[in-house]
């Protein structure tokens, strides 16, 4: 199912098995430079349909940049990104529109439209798709709020919501059109452990209930272990490790051990 990225430091790791099914998202040799800084230096990654992949790595390591590339919000310097077999590099904004209907994204801060109520935020994608029936919109919004465990919050403005609530509303907005895939940018960052756990459960529930493919960018290891079928470790602009949670935990690689144990003075530095 999964293809491990060959890395000199990971040569001792057992090779991971790859299947032949067409991946939901395939990233090949992706490179991105911002100013003088090389953020991505040839990322290769595949996300199969229905699986949940966690992309971990240190802060500022390019995880969010990689995620934004996957939905065409950033343009790489070189490389390829295929969504369900369709290369999105070189597409203009209007062509990307069709792709973006298949891939939802939850932004780190929720990115709610601050001039709209919770209801209008969640109903936004449906309204833009031409849905005008107020009753139908209201019922779909209520259903999403129920999934998010936020019943009765329709009329609140984003400024009066807590960080966790903003993320839930952002998630409800991202999935109301039932995309095939959802990308999560640091879904638990800045949340207390209890709220973070509820977000993790929500990600799992969405995957089980709607069968959505998910990519979760995080540096919260608990979140990664809780939600992911597979974990990819992004280090210095490349996928350094690509395997299951147990393979990651059993790894003797010093760099991975440092990251897992949160050691700043390890040999991997």
């Amino acid at each position, binding site marked *: 199912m999964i293809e491990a990225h060959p890395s000199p430091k990971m040569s001792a790791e057992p090779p991971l098995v790859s299947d032949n099914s067409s991946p939901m998202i395939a990233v090949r040799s992706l490179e991105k430079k911002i100013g003088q800084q090389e953020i991505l230096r040839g990322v290769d990654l595949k996300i199969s349909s229905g699986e949940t992949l966690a992309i971990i790595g240190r802060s500022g390591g390019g995880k969010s940049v990689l995620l934004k590339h996957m*939905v065409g*919000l950033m343009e790489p310097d070189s490389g390829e990104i295929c969504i369900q077999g369709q290369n999105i590099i070189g597409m203009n904004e209007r062509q*990307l*529109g*069709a792709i973006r209907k298949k891939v939802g994204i939850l932004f780190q801060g929720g*990115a*709610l439209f601050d001039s709209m109520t919770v209801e209008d935020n969640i109903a936004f994608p449906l309204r833009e798709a031409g849905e005008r029936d107020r009753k139908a919109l209201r019922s779909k919004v209520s259903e999403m709020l129920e999934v998010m465990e936020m019943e009765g919050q329709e009329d609140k403005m984003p400024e009066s919501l807590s960080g966790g609530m903003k993320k839930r509303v952002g998630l409800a*907005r991202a999935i109301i059109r039932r995309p095939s895939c959802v990308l999560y940018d640091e879904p638990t960052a800045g949340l207390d452990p209890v709220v973070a756990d509820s977000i993790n459960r929500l990600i799992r529930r969405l995957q089980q209930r709607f069968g959505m493919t998910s990519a979760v960018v995080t540096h919260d290891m608990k979140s990664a272990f809780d939600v992911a079928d597979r974990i990819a470790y992004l280090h210095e602009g490349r996928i350094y490790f690509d395997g299951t949670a147990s393979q990651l935990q059993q790894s003797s690689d010093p760099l991975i051990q440092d990251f897992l144990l949160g050691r700043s003075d390890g040999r991997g530095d």
Partner: protein
Amino acid sequence: MVRFFSALGAPLLAFTQYLGELVLLAADTFRSIFTHKLRWKLFLNQVVEVGLLSQLVVIITGAFTGAVFSAQTFFQFNKLGMGSAVGAVVSVSLCRELAPVLTALMVAGRVGAAMSAEIGTMKVTEQIDALRALAVYPVDYLVVPRVLAMMVSMPLLVAECIAVGIAAGYLVAIFMLDINGTYYMANMVRWTRSRDIIMGLSKAFCFGILIVFISCQKGLTTREGAVGVGRATTEAVVNASLAVLICNFFLTMMFNIIYPAGYQ
């Protein structure tokens, strides 16, 4: 010498790039206007924002400009025994120059600043990325309604400014400067032509387009958080005001070719 040219090169390139971005935004917007469905609700909201909520500013600007221009013209013309010509001077000046330019400057300050700040805040808080991620093209959603609202509202605001200015000038002339009202009106009607009004409204339309594109472009290219939003807003107002003043000269010269001065 090389250092001089290289020092000159960077700002020149930046300026050329800026102009290019404005032109591309305008091209994208007009393409969208003709090929995509208009979001009527957003358009009407912007008409309220740009047109209706600018009423007080425009009325005060027009009234006091007309009043002071009437007084100053009278002080000078009265020495030559031409006090009754004040109405014509006030009316023609308001139509051709004062109302379009002053209204545009006020709108740039009030509406242009609001547009760049709002769009800029959306940019730095990832709301524009969210729009794009939800398959909504930001130009269609944010720029098109603002451009159309400005195209509709600016000529109306300038027409209002002209009317209020003329009325204020009349009141000052009649009640404070003791000019004969009949002569004032007769001269005003005689010397104010439809081409003066056409010139003023055409300028208003052009200034509106300049303000809206400059403000939206600044908002869409905002970076670096709250400081960036502040900088974008300031630059939008300054650039739009300068663009209005510079374009006003060229429009005046162009209209002078179409309607030569002194032609009746």
